[in-house]
């Protein structure tokens, strides 16, 4: 591990621009760290040759003086983003041998902005999970440990956050359906931003739940999140749900001035069983904001407690349909057939072998809630409650400019600690409401738990107002001065 691995995007960018560092050196440091980090099981596919090629191209560009915002910056790509000619698994055995002949829009935007692909990182299978334990390629280990005991990195963007927290890359792409960027960011002391639904294109991103999935950056600083979001976002005619509004200069939003801003504290996020240290961190966060001249306002989001069950109808329903294409016909795994097996056997065996337990469970739930006679009671009901949840936020944002909550109800936990699916689902209790409403949110590291693990605070904002979210996050980041980092025990 060299000092270069500690550089933020902004720092590396400035040094690259000053020609006091070459992209090749920077990328080589990342490749070395990637090699050393094998015990963390972060990468599903490493692409060092490609990284070096891209680094050389970046150096040429830097030399020519036409550098883009992320020229030469190494990126770990969640294995959910299709990358041309590079295997893309979505953490599933189903796509073990899948090589897309196309590039996702988000990664294409990053490469257009000069970024360098380090490799594809591990994740919960099809992004279904909050601990990375559902990956067909084995769980990612959190660089942060409880003494000698491994902890989960959170999920589903577990590989992404581990790569960033472990100083392998300064940034990684993530995707967030119900908290899959923010919760793992909180578990690893990184910054994770879920933009407004429609801000980043979903084209070429393996779909989990189409109405919720949104790509976003995972970094070590708020400034880096701003830089990277700018490089990922933008209108895309290939995604009908991607919005045609200009991408602002997010970095410019980091003015440090939040005087007069109103920050809402939703009373429903308090609960009797919230751990003391989470509650304390939250209070501390409010104090930081007050000190910076913001006004703390109590608000109510009355349908909060229904968000999680609503999510666990909507997301599996969409997933059951989105994952129907994995049938062994055109790509991906196909089961070995016995003589006499027909199409139905091919489907049933292929999908039984290709999908893991959690994915199967969610497909079955989703199939059930959409099936004849149950649609109204489950799916339709859930979509109505979703309207109520979005209305709660709409009402709140008439009074406040942003909302502050904890990101997750606990710090990272040990492997196997949450055997019961429902207990696992509870991880997303604070992140899911904004997902259902399509709103932006960021998690920043705010404190360490008593056991020395990072804890995160979440800032939510209005639709397409990532600027306010980033501005508030930047102020809190300064106040928190979170400098703790994991020990490099793996190398």
């Amino acid at each position, binding site marked *: 591990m060299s000092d270069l691995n500690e550089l933020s995007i902004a720092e590396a960018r400035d040094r690259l621009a000053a020609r006091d560092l070459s992209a090749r050196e920077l990328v080589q440091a990342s490749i070395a760290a990637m090699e050393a980090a094998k015990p963390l099981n972060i990468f599903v596919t490493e692409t060092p040759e490609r990284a070096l090629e891209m680094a050389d191209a970046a150096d040429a560009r830097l030399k020519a003086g036409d550098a883009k915002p992320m020229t030469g910056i190494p990126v770990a790509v969640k294995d959910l983003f299709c990358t041309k000619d590079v295997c893309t698994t979505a953490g599933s055995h189903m796509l073990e041998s899948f090589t897309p002949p196309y590039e996702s829009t988000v990664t294409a935007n990053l490469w257009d902005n000069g970024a360098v692909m380090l490799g594809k990182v591990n994740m919960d299978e099809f992004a279904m999970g909050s601990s990375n334990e559902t990956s067909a390629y084995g769980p990612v280990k959190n660089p942060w440990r409880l003494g000698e005991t491994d902890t989960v990195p959170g999920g589903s963007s577990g590989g992404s956050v581990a790569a960033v927290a472990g100083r392998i890359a300064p940034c990684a792409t993530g995707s967030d359906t119900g908290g899959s960027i923010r919760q793992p960011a909180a578990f690893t002391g990184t910054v994770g931003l879920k933009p407004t639904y429609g801000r980043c294109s979903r084209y070429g991103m393996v779909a989990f739940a189409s109405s919720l999935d949104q790509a976003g950056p995972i970094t070590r600083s708020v400034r880096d999140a701003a830089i990277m979001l700018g490089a990922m976002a933008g209108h895309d005619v290939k995604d009908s749900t991607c919005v045609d509004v200009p991408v602002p200069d997010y970095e410019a939003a980091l003015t440090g001035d939040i005087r007069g801003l109103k920050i809402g504290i939703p009373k429903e996020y308090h609960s009797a069983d919230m751990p003391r240290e989470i509650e304390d961190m939250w209070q501390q966060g409010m104090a930081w904001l007050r000190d910076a001249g913001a006004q703390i306002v109590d608000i109510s989001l009355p349908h909060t407690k229904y968000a999680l069950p609503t999510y666990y109808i909507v997301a599996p329903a969409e997933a059951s349909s989105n994952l129907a294409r994995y049938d062994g016909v055109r790509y991906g795994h196909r089961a070995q057939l016995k003589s006499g097996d027909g199409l139905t056997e091919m489907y049933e065996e292929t999908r039984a072998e290709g999908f893991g337990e959690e994915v199967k469970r969610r497909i079955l739930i989703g199939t*059930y809630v959409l099936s004849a006679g149950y649609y109204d009671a489950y799916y339709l009901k859930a979509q109505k409650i979703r309207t109520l949840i979005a209305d709660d936020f709409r009402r709140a944002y008439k009074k406040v400019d942003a909302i502050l909550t904890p990101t997750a109800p606990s710090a990272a936990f040990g492997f196997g600690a949450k055997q019961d699916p429902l207990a696992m689902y509870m991880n997303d209790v604070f992140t899911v409401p904004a997902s259902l409403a*399509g709103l932006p949110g960021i998690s920043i590291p705010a404190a360490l738990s008593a056991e020395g693990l990072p804890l995160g605070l979440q800032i939510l904002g209005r639709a397409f107002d990532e600027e306010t979210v980033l501005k508030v996050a930047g102020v809190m980041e300064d106040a928190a001065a979170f400098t703790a980092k994991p020990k490099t025990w793996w190398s």
Partner: protein
Amino acid sequence: MSVDKATVKRIAKLARIRIDEDRLDPMAGELNNILDWVEQLSAVDTDGVKPMTSVVDHCLHWRADEVTDGNKRDDVLSNAPDAEFGFFAVPKVIE
């Protein structure tokens, strides 16, 4: 609303996922746990509430009627588990 073994079998069939016989009962239990939990939603009064159709509040973009894609059979077949004469091949279906 409770899911029994037969229901698990039926939805597994709909979803085209073979479930081992000895997994049917446990799976019914797991699904019931989740369904019992989401049951709390029935307490919410949703009379007159419009179901959410889209979280984004904008208009559907329409493409022009132009051929801009296709003509990439190699790409289309590049990941095929089995292909014959430019077709995808699957076990024979009898109509």
